[in-house]
């Protein structure tokens, strides 16, 4: 019941907001809904029973003739990602509340619709339902970027849309392929799909199709080229949704579908994926060093981070998987906070060019502190959330191969290089004309900044509860792999 | 009296209906008058109807005849809508030449 209400609440609210289209000043309404949703999400985490594989089951027949059921449930990984979703959305809505009347009710409706779809993706226990939610998540973000985006928005948004759609279709094909191999009266239940034992060469096809689908979403090198432009052109709330939550769909998909269904191929092809992911990690980090625009820099850094997560997933051991799950959550908050920083800078100075900035720390110390903490989280300083994930992932990668860990570890140094460069150029030095009158964080912004600071530090100081929730699910994945192989 | 009717072999009906259908197709292709094209379409529909009825009787299943009724409904609806479109195009172009419907491509 909890899962279905988590999906329905924002869905209904979004429909109401669409109906009220054109009216302004509805953000508090949307905020209220998202906070109620947060309460539900927290309740789900608190009441989560680690002893059961899938909690909060919800199941009813849907399209019976095809064996499709409307079934939902949360594993440890799902519940964490749901928590990420429900925690980020209120913050994202809060970031848009800044006195500007740019955003109408439709905008908030789209955000809530997106939230509903994302929760759906993370909780579906039915392959078809998963696909439906997967596509459903794409639609609101398309409109958010296409309607409220910056320069060149239509072209870039369409590219993003078609690119990801292409991946989705490959996924659908793979799902149907699996579906057709389920026992006699076919059904789309995920467990049934995962139980399918394909011959190796067919498994390769399914693996490739699913991998490309997820790789585009994540994105993994070389399927990433939609990403920097989209992040730059999207309104900040859109970038936050995209980088904070949406790309986790791809990683979640890998954990939920790709590895359990094609474990044999996954094991064999792990080096290939590893090479792609690590290439992306270094490639993104190195490119980020020379970026002159804050959002683009964040985009490349995010690309690098998810490269590491992908690599860690394919190391197939408990530490690496735990780390990648933890890092998914941590990265969600960090990247959202970074885009928030970019948003604040853009709104106040009308520029994101790092060369136009400087000296902000002098005029806006609170903002400087916030930015500093976010940056530290993102460069994985111990006692911030970024460290836990990166440490576990690197430990896992080291178990896989110490040289891989060493190469991946170089990104830690590179991350410090570009992040500190950006921070220094934008915050230190003497104020420029653009930043001379930079106001410090307003009250509204503090409401976003303080929770983020608390989360970044709390997750770094006391990661145990979240790690323990993820643990059974992670072990389950490894168990499925070992039994299938 | 009806009971004594002897049924013709189904292949006769097949041939007849194929022939009628082909005539309908040729009519659609050959004519430029939209009205006649419509009539050809009706002809094709009728050939199918007849075949359905024949099979229905042969298979001793009423479903075929029910389908015929539905086809008739659809045909009637189609004619109603189609003819009104024709009337509109005629008012616009003063002709119902099929080639003028090129404008529909937008």
């Amino acid at each position, binding site marked *: 019941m909890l899962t279905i209400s988590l999906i329905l609440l924002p869905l209904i609210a979004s429909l109401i907001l669409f109906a009220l289209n054109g009216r302004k000043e509805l953000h508090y309404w949307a905020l209220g809904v998202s906070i109620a949703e947060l309460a539900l999400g927290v309740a789900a985490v608190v009441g989560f029973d680690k002893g059961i594989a899938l909690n909060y089951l919800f199941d009813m027949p849907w399209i019976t003739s095809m064996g499709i059921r409307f079934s939902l449930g949360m594993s440890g990984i799902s519940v964490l990602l749901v928590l990420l979703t429900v925690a980020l959305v209120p913050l994202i809505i809060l970031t848009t509340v800044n006195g500007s009347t740019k955003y109408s009710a439709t905008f908030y409706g789209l955000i809530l619709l997106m939230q509903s779809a994302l929760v759906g993706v993370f909780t579906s226990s039915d392959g078809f339902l998963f696909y439906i939610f997967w596509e459903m998540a794409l639609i609101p973000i398309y409109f958010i970027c296409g309607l409220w985006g910056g320069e060149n928005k239509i072209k870039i948004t369409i590219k993003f849309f078609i690119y990801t759609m292409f991946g989705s279709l490959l996924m659908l094909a793979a799902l149907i392929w699996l579906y057709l191999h389920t026992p006699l009266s076919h059904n789309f239940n995920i467990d049934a799909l995962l139980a399918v034992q394909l011959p190796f060469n067919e498994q390769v096809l399914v693996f490739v199709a699913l991998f490309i689908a997820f790789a585009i979403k994540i994105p993994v090198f070389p399927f990433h080229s939609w990403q920097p432009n989209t992040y730059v052109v999207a309104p900040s709330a859109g970038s936050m949704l995209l980088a904070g939550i949406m790309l986790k769909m791809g990683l979640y998909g890998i954990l939920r579908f790709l590895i359990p269904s094609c474990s044999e191929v996954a094991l064999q092809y792990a080096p290939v994926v590893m090479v792609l992911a690590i290439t992306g990690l270094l490639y993104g980090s190195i490119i980020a060093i020379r970026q002159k625009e804050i959002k683009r820099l964040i985009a490349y850094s995010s690309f690098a981070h998810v490269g590491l997560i992908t690599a860690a997933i394919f190391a197939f051991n408990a530490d690496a998987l735990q780390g990648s799950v933890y890092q998914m959550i941590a990265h969600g908050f960090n990247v959202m906070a970074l885009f928030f920083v970019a948003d604040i800078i853009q709104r106040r100075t009308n520029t994101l060019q790092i060369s136009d900035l400087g000296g902000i720390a002098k005029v806006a110390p609170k903002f400087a502190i916030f930015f500093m903490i976010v940056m530290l989280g993102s460069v994985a300083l111990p006692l911030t959330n970024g460290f836990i994930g990166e440490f576990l992932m690197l430990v896992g990668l080291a178990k896989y191969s110490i040289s891989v860990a060493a190469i991946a570890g170089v990104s830690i140094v590179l991350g410090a290089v570009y992040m500190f460069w950006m921070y220094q150029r934008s915050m230190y030095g003497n104020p420029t004309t653009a930043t001379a009158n930079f106001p410090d964080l307003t009250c509204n912004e503090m409401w976003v900044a303080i929770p983020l600071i608390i989360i970044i530090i709390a997750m770094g100081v006391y990661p145990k509860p979240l790690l323990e929730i993820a643990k059974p699910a992670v072990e389950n994945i490894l168990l499925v792999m070992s039994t299938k192989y | 009296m009806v009971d004594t009717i002897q049924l013709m072999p189904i292949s006769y009906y097949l*041939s007849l209906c194929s022939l009628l259908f082909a005539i309908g197709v040729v009519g659609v292709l050959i004519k430029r008058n939209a009205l006649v094209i419509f009539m050809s379409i*009706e002809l094709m529909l009728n050939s199918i109807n007849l075949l359905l009825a024949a099979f229905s009787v042969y298979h001793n299943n009423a479903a075929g005849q029910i389908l015929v009724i539905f086809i008739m409904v659809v045909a009637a609806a189609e004619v*109603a809508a189609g003819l009104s479109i024709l009337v509109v195009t005629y008012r616009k172009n003063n002709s119902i030449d099929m080639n003028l419907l090129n404008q529909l491509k937008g």
Partner: protein
Amino acid sequence: MEKYIFFFLSGLAVFSALMVLISRKPVHSVLYLILCFFAIAGHYILLNAQFLAVVHIIVYAGAIMVLFLFTLMMLNLNIVGEVRKSVLARVAAVIAGGLLLVTLVAALKGLNLSTSLSANTQIGMTSNIGKVLFNEYMFPFEAASILFLSAMVGAVMIGKKEEEEEMTNVQMTNDK
């Protein structure tokens, strides 16, 4: 006996169908088509599908063809010298149609149909059809009625739109 009736009706149907195409005047086409429909109705009777036969006459000959005639007369389309397609196009069309016929026949010939099925000739009776229609096909029947309604509304809408435009035209001229 039935054989002769069958061949007679078939010949009539094919002849009138051809005449639909051959006639230069649309009115003649319409009339030939009606003839063709009657022949088909005869076939229905021959198949002991009386309900269909009656409905066929009522709907096709009575309603649809009248609609055709009505349109024809309203638009005054009965012009002999209508533009015809080029010879090439017509030859191509006939060849295409002929090919279709050949392949159809070839395809259907391969069917292994047993004619030995004993016919329950009562199947086409009105009462029987009614029972089946309102028991098993209740929902499609209602759906069809809605389709029909929407077609009616659509036809009216399409026809009416022009008037509105004319109205606006009139207003515009008035404004001038």
